[in-house]
């Protein structure tokens, strides 16, 4: 059988799934947590607790501010020691609720058993309300509030719910392990979201390098109609929303459009799992699966980590920051963010901590462009990174816009294939920000 994949561009970086055969371990309860109010795309949540309050696991500590925002819950039980701005992973000062951990007491009504609850009760509206109240966001890394994606505009009809199990980033195995160890929960989460959306067809898409996850999901979905589990070719950035929709349905999200324009809603497998927990177990999003990996680690691991756990504590658990590690990346090597501050804490979107050595992450000086065209061939959006690089350096925003720089999804394919080591995405990213500013200003006029 011919495996599906997206048709344009893409690259095959070394897989390095070092932790694929390491089972998920529950990370020990941290002594202190600091929970960010800005773990989702959109406006940061407003803290609703004060210093000195006692909180339980699953208790609301941040309420949404405006439409695109979300709830934040305490991931531990204990006493609030501070509500203050702290540096997050990227070094930005963001409001955090800091809690000293005492015991591990869950808020009332939360079902902490492992039993799989199969009966989906409630209307679409009730389910959606539960998902919203649980503070669920896109856990593939984009962290867009899930409840907003699950209520598309009235004039647009969702036909497919695509569950994203591509996990095309090298190194990261959090989704792989989740699909292998909790396939029933993932499938049920998908069924809940399908009910909310009113769609008949669920497609769970997994890349070919995760055969165990594929088998587990096939088994778990056998008893239901309307769920198709498909294997896709291994190619980065298959997990990108636009690329995944192209791979699964052959439809293309128009420039500047949304996935719903193609009748598709895409949700990550970890999001699906979180939806299951929220609806069937009444359990808000307070923990997630996280890969801690890198060649410089003796034993790469997959942890179930409470949200708000300090990075330094996670590193201590794997033997401390290795001598030769010079960079800690939150996420994968293609799109992850470099951690600026080890005292920063994990968030809802933190899928991986990747430790890289100087040799692995060195940036050698750029050479001249020899017009090999590899960046163009790699671009999954059909752009010409070499041209955007030239225009960007010249500050020619008109020409950049003509060349559709706004379509760039910042996947990094271009830069990672450039034989001259030109920092193509650095230039494109900043030029794109400039062009977007101009486009927004024009729209406001």
């Amino acid at each position, binding site marked *: 059988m011919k495996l599906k994949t997206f048709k*344009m561009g893409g690259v095959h*970086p070394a897989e390095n799934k070092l932790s694929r055969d390491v089972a998920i371990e529950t990370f020990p309860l941290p002594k202190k947590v600091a929970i960010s109010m800005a773990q989702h795309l959109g406006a940061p949540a407003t803290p609703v607790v004060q210093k000195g309050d006692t909180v339980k696991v699953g208790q609301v500590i941040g309420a949404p501010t405006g439409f695109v925002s979300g709830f934040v819950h305490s991931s531990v039980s204990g006493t609030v020691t501070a509500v203050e701005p702290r540096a997050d992973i990227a*070094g930005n000062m963001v409001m955090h609720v800091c809690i000293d951990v005492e015991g591990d007491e869950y808020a009332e009504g939360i079902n902490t058993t492992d039993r799989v609850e199969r009966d989906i009760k409630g209307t679409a509206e009730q389910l959606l309300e539960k998902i919203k109240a649980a503070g669920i966001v896109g856990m593939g890394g984009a962290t867009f509030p899930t409840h907003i994606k699950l209520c598309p505009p009235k004039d647009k009809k969702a036909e497919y719910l695509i569950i994203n199990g591509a996990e095309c980033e090298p190194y990261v195995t959090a989704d792989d392990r989740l699909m292998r160890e909790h396939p029933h929960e993932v499938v049920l989460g998908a069924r809940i979201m399908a009910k909310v959306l009113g769609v008949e067809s669920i497609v769970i898409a997994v890349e070919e390098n995760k055969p165990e996850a594929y088998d587990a999901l096939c088994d778990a979905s056998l008893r239901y109609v309307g769920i198709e589990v498909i294997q896709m070719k291994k190619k980065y950035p298959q997990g990108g929303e*636009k690329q995944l929709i*192209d791979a699964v349905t052959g439809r*293309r*999200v*128009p*420039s500047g*459009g949304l996935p719903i324009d193609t009748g598709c809603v895409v949700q990550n497998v970890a999001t699906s799992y979180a939806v299951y927990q929220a609806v069937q177990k009444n359990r808000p999003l307070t923990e997630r699966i996280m890969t801690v990996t890198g060649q410089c680690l003796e034993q790469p691991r997959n942890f179930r980590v409470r949200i708000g756990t300090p990075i330094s504590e996670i590193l201590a658990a794997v033997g401390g*920051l290795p001598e030769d*590690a*010079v*960079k*800690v*990346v939150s*996420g994968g*090597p*293609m*799109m*992850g963010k*470099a*951690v600026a501050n*080890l005292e920063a804490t994990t968030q809802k979107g933190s899928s991986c901590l*990747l430790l*890289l050595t*100087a040799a*692995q*992450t*060195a*940036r*050698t000086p750029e*050479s*001249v*462009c*020899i*017009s*090999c*065209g590899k960046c*163009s061939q790699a671009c*999954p*959006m*059909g*752009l*010409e990174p*070499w041209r955007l690089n030239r225009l960007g350096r010249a500050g020619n925003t008109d020409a950049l816009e003509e060349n*559709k720089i706004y*379509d760039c999804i*910042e996947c*990094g394919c271009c*830069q*990672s*294939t*450039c*034989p*001259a*080591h030109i920092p193509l*995405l*650095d230039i494109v*990213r900043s030029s794109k920000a400039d062009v977007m500013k101009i486009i927004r200003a024009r729209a406001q006029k």
Partner: protein
Amino acid sequence: MATLTVSPAPHFQSPVTTRHLMNDVLIALSPAVLVSLLFYGWNALMLLAVSVATCLLCEFLIERYLRHREVPSYSATILTGVLLALNLPPAASWWIAFIGGIAAIAIAKMCFGGLGQNIFNPAIFGRVFLLVSFPVAMTTWAAPAGWLGVDAFSGATPLAAVSEGLRQGIPASQIIAEGGLSGWKALFAMAGGSVGEISALALIAGFVYLLVRRVIRPTIPLTILGTVALLTTIFWLINPDKFTGPVFNLLSGGLLLGAIFMATDYVTSPMTTVGMIIYGVIIGVMTVLIRYFGAYPEGVSFAILIANMTVPLLNKYCKPKRFAA
């Protein structure tokens, strides 16, 4: 506390650098170089050495003392030197290679801004510069003694022989038959020509290597060869006495060398598939027209130079297909 590196994604660079790509092309050329050394011996080695040394010296002096920067890629310069030498007559004197090297690097490459900036393929420019400046030296095909001891191919190249024969009114098929000039012989290194043209098989081996290593895409070479095959078949069917056939044309002269190694030079060829196809067709058509109707028996070099000039336009108007409208 440890010092962390903070930089934007992606967090690694391509393991394949410009140097690797150029070295791969050099490796792909090695069968052709080896065969030419076996057949043309010390003189071929001397031409290679003089050409490469001249190119390196020119590039180094100009980059260091006029542009005040390091040479971006010595591999690219060596490649130009090797390609130039492969395009010279096997019996040429050292000064031919020397002057060709200066023309290739100093004029065609550095005047435009060095690596990545040149419009014309430097090696081809060097060859054409020599061809129009020293026509006699560049078309004297006396073959020097090779290391195999085979007293190979003195006299005219197959293309020149046919050209000369046709001028005297002899039918093309007869010239080829009488002269033992069959194109099939070029496949196994039995026809005369420039240093690198001697064995089609060696060039094709290099082509396969470049494809396997994904250094080049097959689009440009296949379009050129396809265009030449199609056009020559048409002309040959119209009048086999006046026009040579497709096999003869594909395998003789610098067509394979040009199509595989010169027309695919990254800097001077288009980047999109559509651009590559148009570029290939231009080279194919020009080659056939020059070979059949031009003053020179051999047309690949001129065809590539002409097509090089269209590359900026092709890159401008042949954009890749976008993901979505």
